[in-house]
């Protein structure tokens, strides 16, 4: 329980805002709020609707067709085709911003300015136009297709924070694992017997053959495309598991004398080389290369960003582990006979969180910036996705539509300023003891 508590305390401290000025805390909370509640803040569909005594929540239904009542008759309509403003009902409660990120307003398309006139239909039968009411006004203008910029901003905040959060989840997991392995075990701790290593090397050929080649041969190349992607992942895990098997078997009976001979595995050197390899490739080029050869989607972007941004965290954790290992309390833990896992999880990791915290917050900022840059270039996310970067790219096509460039840019800059400031406050913080 102690372990969980200390790790949890450290995790809570990652986003500690207590030392920050009030305005910064409020703005940061606003970003989080907007990201969490985006579908409630901006939605084309009414949040609540009362029709002939029966009520519904169209915005929270996921079905492709919705049932609309009109003058006592019921008919189902394609969700995208419904003009909710025109549906007759007793009560309709719309979100504060009655637009989606990508739904187009055909009356205010082609860059309606936030300061200029915007139009709405006054009477459906004569299709007469009137100035739009303040309720459904596009406060930050529209894009070329008539999509609302404010709604786009809200949904791209959600997207950016989502990508930033999950990227850093992957990155810090990999970074902490690799950094603590390298820092804790060093070069002269892990010994493996030569026989185990030899058997493991010999297993590569049959294991690779039966796991990767035979299944594809049996089911054929056309069907193998339909196999879910996580099967590859499972195959890799199985492969690694089989290769690790010889190290757990008791091999003394098989060959008596060769088990006496064992080798040190230079964990630290190997992992440091690996980190250096990753560092030696400029991150943006690696990300762009990977994003260019993979299918554009949010998930693959998160995976690419996560797998390319763990190096900083890994180096910090490694350095901190090496420093902490020589301090008194780890020596004390060793002399008390604590197990390795207890030393790592309840003593080293919580103490190493302080420097990692900076890496994590800079990592989130970096991921958000990278995502914006990629979508500005039109790489990484699928073409229709609305994000800060893609909105700015749309604004580049039409310089007179300044609202397309200014507002997303402000949104991302303010977020980055806040994250940089949170990461900067490490000095008074590092004095405290977490344990």
């Amino acid at each position, binding site marked *: 329980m102690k372990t969980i508590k200390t790790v949890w305390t450290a995790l809570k401290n990652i986003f500690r805002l207590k030392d920050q000025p009030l305005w910064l805390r409020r703005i940061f909370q606003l970003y989080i709020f907007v990201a969490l509640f985006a579908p409630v803040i901006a939605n084309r569909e009414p949040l609540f609707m009362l029709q002939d005594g029966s009520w519904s929540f169209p915005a929270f239904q996921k079905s492709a067709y919705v049932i609309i009542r009109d003058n006592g008759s019921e008919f189902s309509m394609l969700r995208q085709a419904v003009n909710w403003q025109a549906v007759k009902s007793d009560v309709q409660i719309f979100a504060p911003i009655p637009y989606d990120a990508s739904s187009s307003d055909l009356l205010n398309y082609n860059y309606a300015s936030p300061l200029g006139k915007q139009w709405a239909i006054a009477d459906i039968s004569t299709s007469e136009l009137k100035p739009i009411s303040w309720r459904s006004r596009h406060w930050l203008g529209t894009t070329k297709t008539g999509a609302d910029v404010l709604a786009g901003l809200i949904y791209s905040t959600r997207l950016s924070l989502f990508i930033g959060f999950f990227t850093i989840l992957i990155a810090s997991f990999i970074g902490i694992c690799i950094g603590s392995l390298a820092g804790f075990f060093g070069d002269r701790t892990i010994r493996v017997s030569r026989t185990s290593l030899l058997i493991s090397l010999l297993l*590569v*050929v*049959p294991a*690779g*053959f*039966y796991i*990767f*080649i*035979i299944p*594809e*041969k*049996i089911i*054929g*190349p056309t069907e193998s495309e339909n196999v879910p992607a996580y099967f590859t992942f499972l195959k890799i895990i199985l492969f690694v598991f089989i290769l690790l098997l010889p190290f757990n078997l008791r091999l003394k009976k098989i060959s008596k004398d060769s088990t006496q001979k064992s080798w040190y595995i230079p964990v630290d050197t190997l992992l440091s*080389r*690996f980190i*250096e*390899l990753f*560092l*030696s*490739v*400029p991150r*943006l*080029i*690696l990300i*762009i*290369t*990977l994003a*260019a*050869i993979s299918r554009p989607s949010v998930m693959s972007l998160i995976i690419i960003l996560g797998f390319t941004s763990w190096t900083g965290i890994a180096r910090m954790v490694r350095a901190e582990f090496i420093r902490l290992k020589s301090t008194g309390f780890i020596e004390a833990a060793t002399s008390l006979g604590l197990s390795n896992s207890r030393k790592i999880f309840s003593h080293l990791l919580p103490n190493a969180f302080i420097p990692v915290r900076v890496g994590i917050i800079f990592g989130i900022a970096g991921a958000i*910036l990278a995502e*914006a*840059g990629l979508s*500005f*270039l039109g*790489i990484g996310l699928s073409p229709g996705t609305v994000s800060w*970067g893609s909105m*700015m790219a749309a*604004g*580049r096509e039409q*310089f*007179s539509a*300044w609202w397309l*460039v*200014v507002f*997303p*840019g402000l949104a*991302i*800059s303010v977020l*980055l*300023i806040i994250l*940089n*400031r949170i990461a900067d406050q490490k000095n008074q913080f590092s004095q405290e003891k977490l344990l």
Partner: protein
Amino acid sequence: MRSYLLKRIIFFIPTLLLLVLLSFMLLHLAPGDPVDRMMMGPDTQYHQDAGEMTDQRSYWTHRLGLDIPLFYLSIGSLENPKSVFDNKVGSWKKFVPFLHFHSDNQFHRWLFGDNLSSKGILRGDFGISYSSGQKVSDLISSRIGWSLFFALFSVTLAYLISLPIGLYSVQHPESLFSKTSYTILILLFSLPVFWTATVLLMIFSNPDMFYIFPASGVQPAGGFPAGISWIQKIRMTVPYLVIPTICYTYSSLAFLSRIFRVTISDVLKQDFIKTARAKGLPEKTDVGKHAFRNTLIPVITVFSSAFPSAVGGSILLETIFSIPGMGLTIYQSIDAKDYPVLIAVFFLTGLITMAGFLISDLLYAVADPRISFSKKTAS
């Protein structure tokens, strides 16, 4: 020192090998068939020796060496090394694993070249660009100039601007100038560079606002008029370079001046500065001679990262300003799915970054004699 250098170079080799392997893997993980892409390109690589389309296909498959095994070793069945994707199931031999060795394979050819067209990446040949049919090495050498110019020029400029700011604000920490400059630099540090670039373009090269600087390119679109002197050429080029230079400079400016402030104030607190002051040396010598030398270390760090970023180019900025450098090349080759170019850039940046790490480590010792490597290697 020499043993340290030797050790670093020995460690350089496995990392380089890993980089080569990674680049090769990425080249082959890339989706799509390179032959298809070469045939569908804007100017199809049509070869007279081969006649029909299928012959063209097999001609290019053979010419690019795509019909031979990938790597020296391959895992396959006992029966036939080439029928890895063969669908027929019959003989028991198909279910027996076997490790095959291929002396002639794509990786070998990629490294050392075949005897026909390519010389291999070890001799600087990165193959043929799919989209233009040009040699990748020619493409890179024709494009790298502008990237190199902007990277080095901006770092130099950033150094020349941020050093006086850093020195002044350390000497007068309470002054209005140092406080405002600090805030502004922190703000600048957080602004995404592609946004700033777009906003600057929107203001200064927009016919509706101020049309001062041209929006794209690095020289007049139709080329220079004939028979003008180089001074006039430079005068015509400068307006194209103003906004890009600002954008290239300001991010490293913020970074450098932040570091200068920290290093200089650290140095000024140290004993040797106190001694110098106690001796009655003028403030100019204290700061100019002793503190200045210590600012070289962050500069070396930034300069060592300037070279790889020159090869990689600033993809965003070069795309925004249409600067014909490496970044734009990368962007265009992503658009055209031109993987040999991408991988060549990927490999080169890795190589130069690793060399940059090594050189900057050595330069640290030159700039600051207190740093010694012999101790490090002994421990």
